């Protein structure tokens, strides 16, 4: 284009120059400014006249001259520029013209060829139209023929079907047969009105019935594996057998197998129970089968046999019936219901067996196997849960586990009770034994026996607790279940076992108190030991046991649990009861001696006392031995402030006061004065409770016994009538008692008061009350 423009009028060169510049991309001048300013020599609106007049008007001559020279030089350079441009572009233009001319020629040639082509094409179209016209009829025939061919092929398949099916069945390729049949079935069904098809159809149905029969037989066969079964069922389903019926049959079949497993479990239980079970096919090699399995084996065989089978049954049932029949919700639910019922019934039986077996596990002492067995059982059940979502066997399983744990706990409690009873028998024997061997080492060491029974009890309960810990070991799955762990730890172990045991000890001890004398006939030392044992329970053992249990079994919820303080109080009460009973029994034993001695003597006709009666010595001996017994187990206890005087001085003092008093008394109106004196005396001394509770100290116990004995002595004396020497004998006896008994009691005044009262009563009951000289009494007592 630029060449074309160069050819045009060269008069407007400025314009052109601008255009050229534009073409060559030179945009140094601003067109906007140039357009408006008429004085811009490079602008489009340049007006030479205006410019010239302006120059002339504005510029001086020299400036004009300069300008003119400048402009001439500019013009000159522009001229030369233009000449080079023209020259350069001319060559290009020439070559372009040549090219165009050449092209003109070539196009002409091409046009001719194109025309030729068009002619040829029309000829071809004609031909093809002709051909297709001629071929039209044939093609119709061919498509028909190929259709017939296909049909014939199908027909052939149908005709061959019976044979094929037979062959398949012979080859036991049942699935193939079924596939063939299902393919053909619809057609046959549709065309069964036609005789030929009818024949085939009949043959086929016969064969298929046979096949069904076979499959059914297969299905019912005991030997067939679940996988085979599943296949059978699958095929039968494809053969449109009613699903419900199949479900039933399948389950019935499964039931047989599972029942066999259960029967085996049953047999094991019977073996365990010691029943004689004979297998039908008893062979010597199978004799080992008759030795009962242990619980772990039992559960294992249950898991591997019954549970895995039932899992397989459920799984295949799911595959066969539940996952397929989704088009029909109704059947699906029915099938599911059937399965659930079936499984539930069987599981119930199974649980029943397991429970029975677990209950048989009572005798053994070892928990680990049982726990492992239960754990395995529990784990297996959890796995089952996943298979059958609607049912919760693990709950039932946990119930069994809890039951087993409970049974264990109960069993342990029994054995603890038994152990405690054994301990008691042991102590009794120990208490009885040394007396047989002789008196070389005195009475048996009660303290030793106490610590023995204490440690035996503790050891036993500790070992039981550690055994039970197996149930909550961290690797046991059911131990982590809160609904097992909570009740087990809190109610079973803590409440039933530990608290139950402590309560049992208390009540067992209390029983010794109730069989008063004749039935119980517990040796008094046993009462003493038990009393101390209960006291130990109160002070330390119970809280230790409970905290040990709570620590080991992580029992934290303290609400609703038996409080330690309550148990302690109970133990303390029991201890108190036992000690009171001990005091009573010992007191009565001594009372009995005193009573007999007072009742059987003829106090009117007795001779002048020369000795302390043997029975008093016996009483002192007995009390001394009781004192050593009690001293082995109980603290000394507090005595009331004891005068530093010797007992003898105390006694002689009171005796002399008695003497003085009575010396006066017989001179005046005796009886009134006498009763007055004794009444005044009583006014100042406190009332003495005879069978009162005692404290846990030696002196308190001894005081209790002595009180009972002396009160009996007094009551017996009051029932008798004495002669002079009878009274004096009583004086001697009481003095002797005073000499030896003061050291055992809390308050020696108490003994003094009681003994004084005995003498007073004797004086009252005496026909000839002449008292013996204290010095003589002392002499006799010293001699005795």
């Amino acid at each position, binding site marked *: 284009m630029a060449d074309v423009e160069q050819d045009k009028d060269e008069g407007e060169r400025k314009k052109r120059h601008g255009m050229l510049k534009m073409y060559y991309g030179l945009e140094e001048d601003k067109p906007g400014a140039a357009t408006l300013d008429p004085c811009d020599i490079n602008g489009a609106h340049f007006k030479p006249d205006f410019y010239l007049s302006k120059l002339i008007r504005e510029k001086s001559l020299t400036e004009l001259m300069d300008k003119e020279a400048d402009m001439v030089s500019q013009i000159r350079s522009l001229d030369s520029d233009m000449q080079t441009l023209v020259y350069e572009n001319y060559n290009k233009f020439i070559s372009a013209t040549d090219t165009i001319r050449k092209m003109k020629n070539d196009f002409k040639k091409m046009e001719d060829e194109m025309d030729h082509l068009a002619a040829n094409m029309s000829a071809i179209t004609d031909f093809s139209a002709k051909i297709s016209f001629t071929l039209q009829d044939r093609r119709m025939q061919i498509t028909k023929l190929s259709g017939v061919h296909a049909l014939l092929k199908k027909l052939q398949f149908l005709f061959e079907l019976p044979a094929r099916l037979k062959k398949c069945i012979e080859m036991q390729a049942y699935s193939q047969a079924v596939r063939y049949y299902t393919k053909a079935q619809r057609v046959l069904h549709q065309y069964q009105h036609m005789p030929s098809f009818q024949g085939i159809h009949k043959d086929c149905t016969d064969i298929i019935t046979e096949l069904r029969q076979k499959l059914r037989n297969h299905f019912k066969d005991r030997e067939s594996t679940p996988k085979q079964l599943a296949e059978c069922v699958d095929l039968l389903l494809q053969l449109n057998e009613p699903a419900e019926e199949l479900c039933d049959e399948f389950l019935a079949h499964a039931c047989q197998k599972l029942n066999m497993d259960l029967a085996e479990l049953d047999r094991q239980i019977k073996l365990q129970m010691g029943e004689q079970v004979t297998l039908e096919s008893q062979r010597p090699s199978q004799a080992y089968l008759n030795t009962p399995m242990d619980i772990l084996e039992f559960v294992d065989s249950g898991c591997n046999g019954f549970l895995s089978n039932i899992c397989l049954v459920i799984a295949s049932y799911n595959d066969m019936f539940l996952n397929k029949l989704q088009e029909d919700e109704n059947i699906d639910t029915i099938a599911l219901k059937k399965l659930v019922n079936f499984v539930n019934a069987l599981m119930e039986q199974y649980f029943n067996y397991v429970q029975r077996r677990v209950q048989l596990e009572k005798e053994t002492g070892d928990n680990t196997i049982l726990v492992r067995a239960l754990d395995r059982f529990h784990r297996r059940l959890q796995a089952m849960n996943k298979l059958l979502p609607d049912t919760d066997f693990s709950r039932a399983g946990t119930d069994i586990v809890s039951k087993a744990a409970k049974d264990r706990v109960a069993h342990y409690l029994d054995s603890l009770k038994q152990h405690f009873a054994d301990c008691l028998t042991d102590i009794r024997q120990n208490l009885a034994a040394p007396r047989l061997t002789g008196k070389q080492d005195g009475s048996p060491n009660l303290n030793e026996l106490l610590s023995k029974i204490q440690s035996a009890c503790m050891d036993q309960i500790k070992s039981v607790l550690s055994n039970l810990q197996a149930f909550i070991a961290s690797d046991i799955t059911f131990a982590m279940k809160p609904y097992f762990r909570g009740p087990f730890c809190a109610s079973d172990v803590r409440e039933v076992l530990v608290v139950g045991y402590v309560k049992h000890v208390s009540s067992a001890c209390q029983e010794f108190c109730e069989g008063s*004398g*004749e039935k119980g006939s517990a040796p008094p030392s046993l009462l003493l030991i038990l009393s101390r044992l209960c006291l130990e329970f109160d002070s330390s053992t119970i809280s230790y046991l409970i905290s040990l249990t709570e620590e080991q079994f992580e029992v934290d919820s303290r609400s609703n649990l038996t409080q330690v303080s309550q148990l302690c109080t109970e133990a303390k009460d029991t201890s108190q009861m036992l000690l009171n009973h001990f005091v009573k029994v010992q007191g009565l034993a001594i009372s009995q001696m005193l009573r007999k001695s007072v009742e059987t003597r003829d106090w*009117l006709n007795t001779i002048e006392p020369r000795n302390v009666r043997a029975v008093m010595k016996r009483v002192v001996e007995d009390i001394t031995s009781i004192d050593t017994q009690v001293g082995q187990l109980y603290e000394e206890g507090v005595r009331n402030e004891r005068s530093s005087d010797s007992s003898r001085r105390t006694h002689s003092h009171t005796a002399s006061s008695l003497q003085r008093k009575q010396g006066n008394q017989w001179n005046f109106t005796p*009886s009134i004065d006498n*009763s007055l004196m004794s*009444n005044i005396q009583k006014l100042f001394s406190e009332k003495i409770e005879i069978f009162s509770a005692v404290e846990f100290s030696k002196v308190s116990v001894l005081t209790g016994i002595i009180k009972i004995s002396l009160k009996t002595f007094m009551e017996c004396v*009051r029932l008798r009538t004495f*002669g002079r020497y009878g009274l004096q004998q009583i004086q001697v006896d009481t003095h002797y008692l005073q000499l030896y008994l003061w050291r055992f009691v809390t308050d020696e005044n108490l003994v003094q008061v009681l003994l004084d009262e005995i003498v007073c009563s004797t004086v009252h009951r005496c*026909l000839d009350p002449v008292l013996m000289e204290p010095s003589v009494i002392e002499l006799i007592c010293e001699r005795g």
Partner: protein
Amino acid sequence: MEDEASVIYGLEFQARTLTAQTAESDQVRFLVGTQSLKAENQVHHIDFDDENNQISKNVFLHRVGEIWHLSASTIDKNLLATCYNKTSESKAEMCAAVWRLPSDFDTLQSEDHTSHQSLELVCDLTASDFGDLKSVLWHPTGDSSNLVGIADSHILVWELETSSASAKLVSSAELEAKGQPRLTCGQWNPHHNCTQIATANDTFIRGWDLRTMEQVYTIENAHGQLVRDLDFNPNKQYYMVSCGDDCKVKFWDIRNVTEPLKILAHHSHWVWSVKYNHFHDQLVLTSSSDSRVILSNIVSLSSEPYGHLADNDSDREDMDAKDKESVLPQDGVIATYEEHEDSVYAVDWSSADPWVFASLSYDGRLVINRVPRAEKYKILL
């Protein structure tokens, strides 16, 4: 509702035996026998004036010896029997005699008390071959003039003829057991036409049929220790109560002697005496050598276990029935009386006033008490 204070009467001598004047049904009268080896013994005839809360007494001398047991006749209110200790230098034996009170309160008033009248001897009850006599029992209803004596190991029956002032020994039975069994006490059963008595020896209680003089039942080991006293429920014919040295009071059904019906253990020493109230058999008195007298309410074994049902007004019956259920009387101790300072060996109910009873301690203190009013109204209403 302040309960009136108990009334205390002091004897100069020690005393062990007390009885209500059984045949007297109008006045509250008691008889007390003293025990003194030196002085002359006395029988105090006590009259209690309930309204004025006052005691008046008649003292009669009992010269033959200290009185161990006293029983008032059911036939004639002026007759009584005592078992007394006749002592000499080397011998003490227990005899029994029937006496007549020479005068009554009605005839003898405000004479000088310095010289006491003696009891008039009706007749001696001879039992020289049978050992010491422990107690004499009058026929419970007074229908017959027979007397039963409890000797060491024998039961003796006399027929008393007041007209000729003689008592004839009509029959006797011997208790045969190993050792030398000594009967401690006896009680005449007021039921079964008064044909049975019960005796106690050691820990045994035995029932005897007076017609055949043979044992009819035995309660072995009735108490852990000696049995001290017995009493029959006056309204329920098979019920009996016993007490003893094991500090317990036991209730028995004599048809089933293997187990007691109930055991009370409120005393802290031997229980010496137990008495049913003659009118309201739920009230049982016991006394003990712990110096206490305890009044218990044993309504569960009484003839009125549900209170007075007959009193229900018909219009309030429903409400009453409900009330009865909620406040059904319970067994328990009504009151413990601690006025005594020595062993209380005897206690008895008044034969005239069902709410009055007397207790006697060894130091000669006689205390007359009443059933607390609250309890009285509970029983009556």
